[in-house]
């Protein structure tokens, strides 16, 4: 049977991809940020998950505002990256597992999580950059991937609690699949940041650290916040952190904390890496 072995969080900001593309990881500005990924990379190297379910938000590549699904699951054997408007060279395509995706979709809908299924899905920096930060850049990626897109762009966006419940349903969906697969869930985005308006540049280190600690030990704490409360503290784009709860919901309640890394600022954000392991 398939099994979720753990979860990892990562920022997905475009600047991370640019830093990797330009080989800046050991420059003074980036060093501490990237060095803190090394224990996460080592964990992946040790456990070698077969499949990574990447929870992220699309920033206007695959979805336009004509149709905005709250939750959307990639159900294809291949996912391509593409130009998001910045004329960057797309990275190599990612391998999917359509049969596994459709199983997950079926089991989510059975649990009343009515997800949008996508047989074609372009993946943007939100999906690509965590994978690059955790695995490096490859022509043939070392892990099969399944994109799970959450709308954090156009309100109403789902509540933190709904994201947590999606994660709980995701665990059941994954672990009812017959094939022996080791699965890791990446919760991407965040942490506190606001790109827009006169309040741009907001970073709340205290809220970020409290969020990291609670995601690890007491994730229901964050589910009690409304989206307005989260945006007030963590900024409009900081709302992305609710996607970490999808990852967290897919893990056991008393999870093993393998690694905690926080850095701020990186570009305009606070950035958090958590490596959480299922021991049961």
């Amino acid at each position, binding site marked *: 049977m398939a099994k979720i072995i753990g979860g990892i969080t990562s920022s997905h900001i475009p600047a991370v991809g640019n830093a990797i593309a330009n080989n800046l990881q050991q420059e003074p500005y980036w060093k501490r940020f990237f060095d803190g990924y090394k224990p996460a990379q080592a964990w992946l190297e040790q456990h070698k998950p077969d499949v990574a379910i990447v929870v992220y938000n699309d920033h206007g590549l695959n979805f336009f505002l004509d149709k905005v699904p709250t939750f959307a699951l990639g159900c294809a054997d291949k996912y391509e990256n593409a130009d998001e*408007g910045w004329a960057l060279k797309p990275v190599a395509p990612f391998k999917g597992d359509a049969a596994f995706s459709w199983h997950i979709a079926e089991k989510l809908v059975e649990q009343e999580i009515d997800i949008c299924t996508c047989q074609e899905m372009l993946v943007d920096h939100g999906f690509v950059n965590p994978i690059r930060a955790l695995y490096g850049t490859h022509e043939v990626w070392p892990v099969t991937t399944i994109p799970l897109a959450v709308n954090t762009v156009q309100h109403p966006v789902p509540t933190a609690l709904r994201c947590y419940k999606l994660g709980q349903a995701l665990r059941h969906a994954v672990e009812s699949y017959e094939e022996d697969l080791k699965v890791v869930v990446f919760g991407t985005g965040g942490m506190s940041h606001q790109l827009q308006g006169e309040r741009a540049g907001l970073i709340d280190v205290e809220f970020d650290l409290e969020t990291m600690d609670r995601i690890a030990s007491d994730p229901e704490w964050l589910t009690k916040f409304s989206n307005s409360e989260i945006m007030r503290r963590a900024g409009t784009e900081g709302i992305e952190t609710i996607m970490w709860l999808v990852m967290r919901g897919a893990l056991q309640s008393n999870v093993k904390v393998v690694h905690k890394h*926080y850095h701020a600022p990186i570009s305009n954000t606070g950035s958090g890496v958590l490596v959480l392991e299922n021991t049961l």
Partner: protein
Amino acid sequence: MNWTKHDYEDIPGTYVFDGKHAHGAYPLNKLLFSFCEESNRDEFDRDPAAYCDKYGVAGKYKDFVLNKDFLGMLRAGANIYYMAKMAIPRGTSVQDAGAQFQGITTKEFQAKLLAKGEGLVERLEKRGGYWNG
């Protein structure tokens, strides 16, 4: 037409992208989204006004686009991620835009960001449990 009020509307300096914004600025965001295609970026650069007309971007929306008034666009309902598709290839980074929103230089904006990280290593040490270099 009676748009429902939200408790996020009093967050200062903040324009939450919701239905009200998305509805009013739909043509503008459609124009911005079109910049994912290189040929569209080129077509816009050849004649920005004609490109606005093609997408039905008119009135104040058109003025904001032609003047590269990013705060104006934002207040009028442009989505920040969609706006980045126009700003970044034309030399305005997200930090340049942030500085413009506040009426300060990019250097000043970056210095304010860096100040958020002051004392971080000591703070994490005190909190405990964090990787710290």
